[in-house]
């Protein structure tokens, strides 16, 4: 019966191979090996144009790092992927952003998406300063587990442990989950934010200068996590430090005045050295 219904549905909706015509053309525009493609993306806040005609390819399963001077639009570019700019007042975005989510290709800014919150839930974002909620650690994790994913009661605790282990925080907090998250150190708070995002099992991990507000030891810990996480999922990161960028990037993108100026690939032509990067930045 279900098979008959499936055939009828496919026949009446014009789908081919399980995809609608729109999805078909979108899939063609996003080759295998790419997790995301930005084409002609422009972002303005009121009258101030922040991103001008950006074209960028984000390869799957690798770490892409965006660098550039402050005010060059790196964070805005990162937020484009998760459609977060819309939450800021006066924002207009044009262009096409294709994302590969759950095996399907989605045009993130098309009308077919509807309410973007399901899209955002397929990606995890970590901000520059740790934005833990002033609640207990457990309640922080509950935000994603219970309220976004709506997991049944039995799955909440195991998923929470899994996420906290992935963020290398479980050993430090497993016995004080009901204490206020604000009592954690800066590095621990940032790892909690990471865990909170990882609980979504996201396809993309978006990191906006995640170590900017941390001391060296905590920053190293986070970098270690990023390296290990980068093997299994697509990581897009904004970095404030050139050396950090060179350490972590598989794909290095230089952003200047709202445009993508140059892209280097570690496994292709290779990454530049620090002096060359500084030179580019000063231009």
């Amino acid at each position, binding site marked *: 019966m279900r098979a008959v219904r499936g055939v009828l549905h496919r026949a009446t909706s014009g789908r081919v191979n399980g995809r609608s015509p729109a999805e078909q053309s979108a899939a063609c525009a996003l080759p295998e090996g790419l997790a995301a493609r930005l084409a002609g993306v422009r972002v303005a806040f009121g009258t101030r144009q922040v991103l001008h005609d950006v074209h960028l390819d984000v390869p799957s399963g690798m770490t892409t790092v965006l660098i550039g001077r402050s005010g060059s639009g790196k964070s805005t570019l990162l937020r484009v992927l998760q459609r977060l700019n819309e939450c800021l007042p006066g924002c207009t975005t044009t262009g096409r952003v294709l994302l590969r989510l759950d095996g399907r290709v989605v045009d993130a800014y098309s009308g077919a998406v*509807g*309410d973007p*919150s*399901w899209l955002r839930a397929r990606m995890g974002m970590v901000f520059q300063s740790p934005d833990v909620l002033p609640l207990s650690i457990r309640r922080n994790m509950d935000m994603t587990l219970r309220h976004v994913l709506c997991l049944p009661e039995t799955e909440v605790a195991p998923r929470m442990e899994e996420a906290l282990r992935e963020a290398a925080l479980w050993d430090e907090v497993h016995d004080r989950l009901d204490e206020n998250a604000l009592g954690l150190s800066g590095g621990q708070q940032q790892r909690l934010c990471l865990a909170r995002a990882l609980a979504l099992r996201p396809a993309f991990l978006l990191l906006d200068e995640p170590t900017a507000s941390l001391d060296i030891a905590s920053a190293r810990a986070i970098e270690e996590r990023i390296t290990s996480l980068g093997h299994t999922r697509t990581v897009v990161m904004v970095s404030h430090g050139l050396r950090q960028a060179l350490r972590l990037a598989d794909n290095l993108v230089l952003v200047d005045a709202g445009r993508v100026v140059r892209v280097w690939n570690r496994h292709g032509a290779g990454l530049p050295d620090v002096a060359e990067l500084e030179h580019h930045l000063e231009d």
Partner: protein
Amino acid sequence: MLRRWKGGVVTTVCALCAASVALALVAIFAFLCLFALPVFMDGQGFAVIAGDWKPATGSYGVLPMLQASMGVAGIALVLGFPLSLGICCGMNGLAPSGVGQMFRGLVRCLTAVPTVVYGFAALFLLVPLVREAAGRGTGLCWLTASLVLALLVVPTMVLVMEAGMGPTVERVRLTGAAMGLNRGQVMVHMVLPLCWRHMAGAAALGFGRAMGDTLLPLMLAGNAVQSPGSPLESVRTLTAHIALVLATDSRSGTYGSLFVAGCLLLLLNLAVQLVLRVLARSGAQFRGRT
């Protein structure tokens, strides 16, 4: 799927709520103006506002009441403003710090005291005092009402002033101390000049509140219809007038002037709000320049 249109429902509901609030305001103004309009059309015209109240001769003017309202509120402001200023300065450093904190809590409690309780207490405490001090009259007069009104509006004025003074004091305290000024001098020469807009705002708000109060003038001011002369005379404010006329259920000839009185009160309220907005906007420009 369900989640998707839940967001839409929420925003629609909130927008409807906002619309209903705006609608309520428009309705209030509209109804009162509509009912007051016939009074002007009937030929009585501005005699209602400018004339005297003599129902026997068919003159339903509310001028004495208007004068009384302004007088009562004015004296209340004159008495209450210095008190509020003193409390505010005290809370912000001129008094020992423990006392200041205590006052903050106390003032917040005072805003909760019902008006009618003030009136009731004043009736049995203040009125005999005033009667004896004046040596004549019943003690129910302009002065009594203003005194208690002042006490009523002080907490509100203090809270508004404090909202402006607190942050300003924080900003300039260190600067002033570094220049060698003591606390009193910092207050007088630095804080007060910077906060004058908040002061003016508090005064406007206090005046508006005093104008709009009904119970205290009704219970304490005597309710005689006459132009206010000495503070020891009995007067009737606009608010008390409305209450008295409607409560005694007289014939509808007098109702027209009530609606006019209501409109006058609304207009005065509008004026107060505009003054507050002008002050706020000029304050914002000032901040932008520095």
